[in-house]
Every structure is written in structure tokens, then in C-alpha cells.
């Protein structure tokens, strides 16, 4: 059982500098050929300041900083049994190469649910990202499911 005393816990902020190559690597792994992510001039032509981060890019700081693994350990759930249930984004501003993001992650809720495949714990996290100008850029909501 996940540690319910962790509800409302905020974790120390984590930071991540956005690199152009990392934006490109992610869309290339996905197979998304939209040139705005690959070529600066195409991005500018389409109304961006530079090659923007793609819609699911924010997973990169989440995973590469290991913050998600830290949270999973802190709420005492078994990483090997965790599945991703939901992911939700609210886009406030574009994210560009050179931006330094700060993420603040909070445990919103921990619930137990029984279904046809047994019982599970549902852990809802929210992360707010700001940039180097302290402007909000993105809000993320993540639902983790721990199978029992």
C-alpha cells in the first residue's frame, strides 16, 4: 500500500536545461516528422521563436532528472509494479532550446481501487513548470497505477 501520509507532499524543485538536440531526439524516436522541431527556420516561418518542445517533451526532464523514481520511492510503491494510467498537460507558453525549467511536483491524492484484475493504488501527481524568467510554462498531471 502506498504511503497515504505523502498526500499534499511537495518535493524539492528540480531543474532542467532544454537542449535543441533533446527536442530532436524525442520526435525522431516517435517518428514525428514535423519540421518545426528539427529546423529553426521552419519553426520561425510557422510563428515560433525557435524549434519548440513537442507536446510530450516534458517527460524528458521528468525522467532524466530521476524525480519520478524519487517520488515512487517516497510514496513507497513498487516501481516494478507501476503502470502509467493517465497523463495530462496544460500548455501555458512554448518551451524553447536554452530555457531552464524548474519543476515542482506534488502528490495530489492516493486512492485504493478494486477492479476485476485485483486491487490497485492510484497515485495522482501534479507538476508545475516555470522557466528562467519565473513564468509558468506548463502544468502536468500524472496518474500512476500500482498493481498488487
Amino acid at each position, binding site marked *: 500500500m502506498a504511503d497515504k501520509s505523502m498526500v499534499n507532499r511537495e518535493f524539492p524543485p528540480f531543474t532542467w536545461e532544454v537542449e535543441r538536440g533533446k527536442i530532436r531526439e*524525442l520526435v525522431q524516436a*516517435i*517518428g514525428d516528422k514535423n519540421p518545426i522541431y528539427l529546423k529553426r527556420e521552419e519553426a520561425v516561418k510557422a510563428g515560433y521563436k525557435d524549434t519548440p518542445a513537442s*507536446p510530450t517533451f516534458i517527460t524528458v526532464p521528468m525522467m532524466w532528472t530521476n524525480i519520478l523514481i524519487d517520488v515512487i520511492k517516497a510514496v513507497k510503491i513498487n516501481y*516494478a509494479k507501476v*503502470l502509467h494510467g493517465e497523463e495530462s498537460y496544460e500548455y501555458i507558453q512554448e518551451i524553447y532550446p536554452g530555457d531552464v525549467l524548474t519543476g515542482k511536483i506534488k502528490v495530489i491524492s492516493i486512492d485504493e481501487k478494486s477492479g476485476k484484475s485485483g486491487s490497485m493504488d492510484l497515485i495522482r501527481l501534479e507538476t508545475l513548470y516555470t522557466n528562467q524568467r519565473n513564468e509558468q510554462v506548463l502544468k502536468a498531471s500524472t496518474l500512476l497505477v500500482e498493481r498488487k
Partner: protein
Amino acid sequence: MAAELFFQDINVGDEIPMLVKKPVNKVQLVRYAGASGDFNPLHTDPEAGKAAGIGQIAHGMLIMGFVAEAVTNWVPKIYLRKFTVRFAGMTRPDDVITVTGRVTEKKQDSGSDIVKGELLAKNQKDETVIAGFFEAALPDKK
């Protein structure tokens, strides 16, 4: 590059262009692990998948990336305001994912022209792997 899209051009019920992805392959999963930083061996090591009792499965976030690709092939990314997915099923190597979507609502709200829609990613067996939702703020035709 998506063509310019205006609020007036869109109607409830409009379908977004269907996106049929190439089969998910194991090299792609390794690439996605490296790009995203999600090194859970469940996604790249068949033995780890077996040990977990579910077999090797793709990163859910990779499939969310497919859905994002379909949406932003239609509505320029700069207009996208919200994007939500529920992971409804697992994707395995060699699965072929098809993304579809349609506009469910149009509204003018405090100076913004908002379009909402639903999204589905299905595999070759017609099983839903992602059910999602998007919201975009579109420009007005002058």
C-alpha cells in the same frame, strides 16, 4: 507543416486526418528510452517483461507521442492548450497504431475561440490503447 487553420473552418464532428504509424519495433523502444530517459527495462528487455508478468510493452508516453503527432499534424502546436490521455491498453513490438480524432465542441469563451476534441489510438486488433482529449485556441478569420 499544417495548413493555416481558422476557428470558422471547423465544425463539430469534423475528423482529424487519420495517422497510421509504422509498426512499433524494438529499436524504436530503445531509441525512445534513450531520448526520454525512461529506462524501465520492461520496455526494452523481454526478460524483464516476462518477469513482471506482462511481457515487453512499449512506453505509454511513446504512444502519447503518436497521438500528439496526429493532433499537431492538424492543429498547429502553437494553438494547443490542453492534451490529456488515458492509457487503456498495452502496446507490444510489431503492433500497428492508428490515431483518429474528431471535434466534439466549439465555443467562444472570453475572447478565445476554443475547439475541443476526442482522440483514440487503436492497435491492429481494433483494441483501444489510448483514449484522449485535446483543447485548442484557434485564430479568427479576419
